[in-house]
């Protein structure tokens, strides 16, 4: 039994007379201690997927169909009070910008103990001790002193460490991280990623990592989900997807990376751009940008097919020639 089971989840945003569909029935599951990555470009629906798992969709967005089964209950149907026992407690979230996540007028210590006391009946002193030990886990130097610091006194990397410490406070079984390192420099990004990998593995925490960066996902996760225009187009073991992508979109993404092209040469590009939600083409939504598209692609919506460990949603999956890596992949 999977820890988290998302089934045919649909999300829509009613806008006046129109209704925009942001998710067209996505399904995936996460086992205990598993790390999966959701990859895609802006507008692919990856953040909406994460927010809907936690019931954090901003109005007027709503889940119009599907289930989110967590520990044998459908958490998408819970009310606010019931959800509060799960969100931030059993499932934590890490957002992109640590400065927006932390409250600028409260000390780190206040924010951490407040979170603990909201979820558990413990004394102030106990909460403080747990907070300090979590700050130590994320390798913040002299955590006792940092408890009294305000967020602006810390650097970007340190702030994100604090955010991770807060996410770990209640020993959750899942952490959802939405672009946790996008706002950080490469050297800091590498440190934070190494830290998250270690913490998740040591504490047997499941991780849903949402990012546009295929390289980061390939380093940290065991399984990858590639999204395009509100649908999952490919899913599989990380190594399989990276070394042998099946869907033309995934291939395009990998081939567009500079490290996959010889220096100075023109980069392989995917023509066009992600469609807006109100202009998603009929049939396969990738068809206007795809080299393999034909008439059938304009009519039929492809389903995920292939062996369970590596599926892709493309009608012409058998017709597409084998993937040839041009560079960095060996």
């Amino acid at each position, binding site marked *: 039994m999977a820890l988290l089971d998302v089934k045919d989840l649909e999300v829509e945003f009613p806008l006046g007379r129109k209704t925009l569909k942001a998710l067209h029935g996505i399904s995936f599951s996460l086992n205990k201690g598993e790390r999966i990555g959701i990859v895609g*470009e*802006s507008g692919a629906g990856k953040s909406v997927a994460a927010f809907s798992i936690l019931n954090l969709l901003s109005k007027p967005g709503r889940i119009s169909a599907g289930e989110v089964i967590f520990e044998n209950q459908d958490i998408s149907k819970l009310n606010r009070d019931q959800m509060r026992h799960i969100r931030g407690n059993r499932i934590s979230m890490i957002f992109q910008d640590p400065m927006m996540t932390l409250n600028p007028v409260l000390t780190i210590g206040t924010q951490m103990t407040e979170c603990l006391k909201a979820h558990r009946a413990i004394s102030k002193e106990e909460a403080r001790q747990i907070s300090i030990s979590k700050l130590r886990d994320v390798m913040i130097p002299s955590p006792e002193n940092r408890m009294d610091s305000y967020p602006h006194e810390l*650097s*970007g*990397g*340190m702030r994100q460490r604090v955010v991770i410490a807060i996410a770990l406070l209640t020993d959750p079984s899942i952490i959802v991280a939405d672009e946790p390192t996008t706002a950080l*420099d*490469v*050297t*800091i*990004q*590498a*440190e934070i*990623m*190494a830290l998250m*990998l270690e913490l998740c593995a040591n504490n047997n925490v499941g991780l849903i990592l949402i990012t*546009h*960066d*295929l*390289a*980061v996902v*390939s*380093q*940290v996760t065991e399984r990858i989900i590639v999204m395009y225009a509100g649908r999952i187009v490919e899913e599989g073991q*990380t*190594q399989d997807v*990276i*070394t042998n992508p099946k869907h033309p979109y995934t291939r*395009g*993404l*990998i081939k*567009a*990376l*500079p*490290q*996959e*092209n010889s*220096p*100075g040469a*023109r*980069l*392989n*590009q*995917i*023509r066009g*751009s*992600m469609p807006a939600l109100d202009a998603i083409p009929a049939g396969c939504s990738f068809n206007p940008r795809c080299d393999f598209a034909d008439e059938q692609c304009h009519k039929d919506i492809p389903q995920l097919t292939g062996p369970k460990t590596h599926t892709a949603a493309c009608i012409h999956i058998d017709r597409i020639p084998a993937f040839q890596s041009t560079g*960095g*992949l*060996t």
Partner: protein
Amino acid sequence: MTENTKTPLVEIENVEMRFGGGGGFLSSPQPVVKALNDVSLTIEKGDAFCLVGESGCGKSTLARTVIGLNPPSAGQIKYNGNRIDNLNSRDRQPFTKKMQMIFQNPYASLNPRMTVYQTLEEPLKIHYPAMSRAEIRSKVEEVMLSVGNDPTWGERYPHEFSGGQRQRISIARALMLDPEFIVADEPISALDVSIQAQVLNVMMDAQKERNLTYLFITHDLSVVEHFGSRVAVMYLGRVCELSHTNDLFKTPRHPYTQALLSAIPKIDGSGVNPVKMSGEVPTAMDLPSGCVFHTRCPYAKERCSREIPALQDNGDTKTACFAVEEGRV
């Protein structure tokens, strides 16, 4: 002197940049931010010169100083052998025509109240007031086509376009005056992966067709490896390594460059194992003594905290590091 092929296109000589300071009579004294410290670089014609470094290392400040958006506190900037940093705006005009800039965020760098056509014709109207309407129109169309934009977009406003399209419009604006030299400050960081490739291709095509020289600022080292001919790595307002792109990626010498390269996420499944650097980047308000990197450097010795290493020839590359000089790296 000016059109001599031996003259580098842009020479940056001992440039320093200070922000802040002042105060003291009625207000408390303000701290001085030393954003650039004794930076010297030369950019040859046809170069795709890349500046890399982390946030706050001064790479954008250097770009803005070169293009004249903030005059340097000390040092000189020469264009084709002519000193340009001390010119007033009228004397500067012949040079501004040849130097253009592309900014990071295409959502902020295009005027939302001007149509694409108005945005593109403005530089022509300023620099070539005698140009007829028909000439302007044909020039705008030519440039729009060359960056892969539909010329009929002219009557539309920036909000009607996607990020990649907008960035191509800003590239078109930079190309309107047929410049020789383009400063691009993180032109693709705000874009999606598949769009990054499109925009980089447009920039590389333009370089070939128009014989452009780029000063390309980025924090993305894989883009540098692909795009750059020469690279300068900056740390806290100083250049710590200067090299040809191939050499830098094959054999990074400076300890900071090594750490930076080890941190690039790779897609080949090699996992995350960055070179550990101790501590945090110090602020430019309170620079460490001696080598600015010594507080985090695994090779630092007592000498590094006393003396400032100069950029020295080291085979094909230049490095500013005592440990490299002494053969300890």
